[in-house]
């Protein structure tokens, strides 16, 4: 078992013929992902690593039955791409693109909700259910099939943590890259709900950072609804207010979004916190 995605997802890649597209189609195929179609306007009839390319998402869906889309297009075309995917009936959209204007994200997040579609990202590395599928740009080599669920607002930091789990032989059920933007489609709470239901997940690791109140909201939810052990790491304990720390969403604004507030909320919800990212694995090892 896994959450959100598994071996059944048939993936279409929007922005398939660029450097990133070609590289990651190959990486995903190597991981076992069912990549069935690619879309680049004007390039129908070509193929990338044997995956057929279509002009539109509608054509790709009709020909291949794709139900999932991976968005790799540049920021200024991302809104159009997500709308096109949803319009073609795609039910899982994973948006990797960084620097999308948040007004665009605001629109497609709501449109996805009206279409009962799952939107992951934007500005995320994607999602992986080890042994089943990987949809995104996460490095395949860091994963191990197992029982720990991971949800994170960060990319490399997550790889670091997942890798340290693997080094202790602790596998993962699903690792969700939620994204570093101020508005994201799938949140910590959405992931917690799914991990709680998933029989194969025995513990959950959350990787948060400064900015917004997603961690505080998650802590409230955990108190009432989550029975499985939750572990967390928060990045940005030393970040000054008003400075955007790399991610568009990582900013302490008007006194909100400090690491201190997040850490205290998690403590109150009995979430075990790690001081260093690499310590998470030690904490999990004691439990699993």
């Amino acid at each position, binding site marked *: 078992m896994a959450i959100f995605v598994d071996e059944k997802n048939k993936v279409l890649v929007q922005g398939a013929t660029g450097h990133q597209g070609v590289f990651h189609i190959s990486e995903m195929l190597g991981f076992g992902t069912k990549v069935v179609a690619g879309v680049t306007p004007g390039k129908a009839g070509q193929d990338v690593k044997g995956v057929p390319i279509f002009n539109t998402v509608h054509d790709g869906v009709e020909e291949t039955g794709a139900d999932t889309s991976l968005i790799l297009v540049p920021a200024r075309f991302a809104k159009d791409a997500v709308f096109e995917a949803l319009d073609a009936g795609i039910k899982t959209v994973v948006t990797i693109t960084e620097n999308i204007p948040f007004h665009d994200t605001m629109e497609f997040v709501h449109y996805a909700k009206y279409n009962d579609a799952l939107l992951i990202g934007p500005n995320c590395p994607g999602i992986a259910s080890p042994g089943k599928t990987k949809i995104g740009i996460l*490095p395949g080599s860091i994963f191990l099939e197992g029982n720990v669920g991971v949800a994170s607002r960060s990319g490399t930091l997550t790889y670091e943590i997942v890798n340290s789990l693997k080094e202790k032989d602790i596998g993962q059920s699903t690792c969700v890259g939620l994204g570093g933007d101020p508005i994201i489609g799938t949140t910590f709470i959405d992931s917690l709900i799914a991990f709680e239901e998933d029989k194969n997940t025995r513990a959950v690791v959350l990787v948060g950072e400064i900015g917004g109140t997603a961690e505080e909201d998650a802590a409230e939810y955990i108190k009432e609804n989550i029975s499985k052990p939750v572990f967390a*790491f928060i990045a940005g304990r*030393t970040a000054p207010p008003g400075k955007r720390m790399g991610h568009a969403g990582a900013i302490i604004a*008007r006194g909100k979004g400090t690491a201190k507030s997040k850490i205290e909320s998690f403590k109150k919800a009995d979430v075990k916190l790690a001081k260093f990212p690499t310590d998470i694995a030690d904490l999990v090892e004691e439990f699993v």
Partner: protein
Amino acid sequence: MKLFEYRGKELFDKYGIAVPNGKLATGEKDFSNLNFPLVLKAQVPIGGRGKAGGIKTIKNLKEAKEKLSQIIGIDIRGYKVGKVLAEEMANIKKELYISISLDRSKRMPLIMASASGGMDIESVPDDKIFKEWINPLIGIQSFNIRSIVSRLGLEKEETKQVSIVLSKIYKLFREYDCELVEINPLIINIEGEAMALDSKVIINDDAMFRHTDVEPELTELTPLEKDAKEKGIAFVQLGGNIGVIANGAGLTMATLDALTHFKGEGGVFLDLGGTDDPEKVKQAFELMKKAKPKVIFLNLFGGITKCDTVATGVKSVITKEGIDCPVITRIKGMNEDAAKEILKDAGLITATTLQDAAKRSSDLAGGK
């Protein structure tokens, strides 16, 4: 991008929101078309300018010249005043607060309004601030506006005026990709007209490509941060003396946090991102050198990015351009062994764990 008050007001004017008659003042000639009394307002990208001497009332031309020279060039919380806005004084009957910002949790534009205008909104009690969320797909509707204005204790004509301003700032918020549009205070003047006495407009940096009419303004950044932004590198200057280069925003933040644990203090946040392009690595080190840290801490995790490729880029910069401070490196992930050899060969210190590297960096930097 935070706009100066006068530029925000230019946008208000474009959207038909009344603002006081005024202009940027540099000398005597600029006062000729304005009616005294006037208010002189220093244009700085932060609040609190009144207390810092950045706002002055003037009655006549003689005073105007004198007080203008008292404002231009002064330092307001680190910002040197270059521009001063001269405006005709308004006759205030009521002062309100209105703003539109993004509610990250609800993922919707949030309108906030209060009848307690003119003061710092954070000092206004919660029960005096009224909130309304707008569905971005359907936009602002009459019921949203009624819901807000009915709670402000306004007379009939005032209600009408404020309703129009609300629908106009929503339009501005959406069309200009704003993070914030704030009018504090929005006044009702003696003549019964709603007028914006101040403006705070922040445009989302990621959307600047479609607002070519807005001249970029990087007033809040240090010169090095501006330079980095032009090169597309995430770079933030902080108070300490250890320069951190890592890949990924979260990892870079976590690295800074680790330093603090060992009594070190980060001076630079530099996120290399997912690149292993030698040119980017070179630019990153050049920027870092200009920030003059006492120690550089390079923390890399190689996933898709290969550690040895980045290490080769680092070695090439260091051997060609030299470096005058110790560099502690901690490398993990894809091809880490090869990368460590390359970095050792370049004369850099290779640590084994994050903790080890953070401790050594902190100790070398003098625990400060």
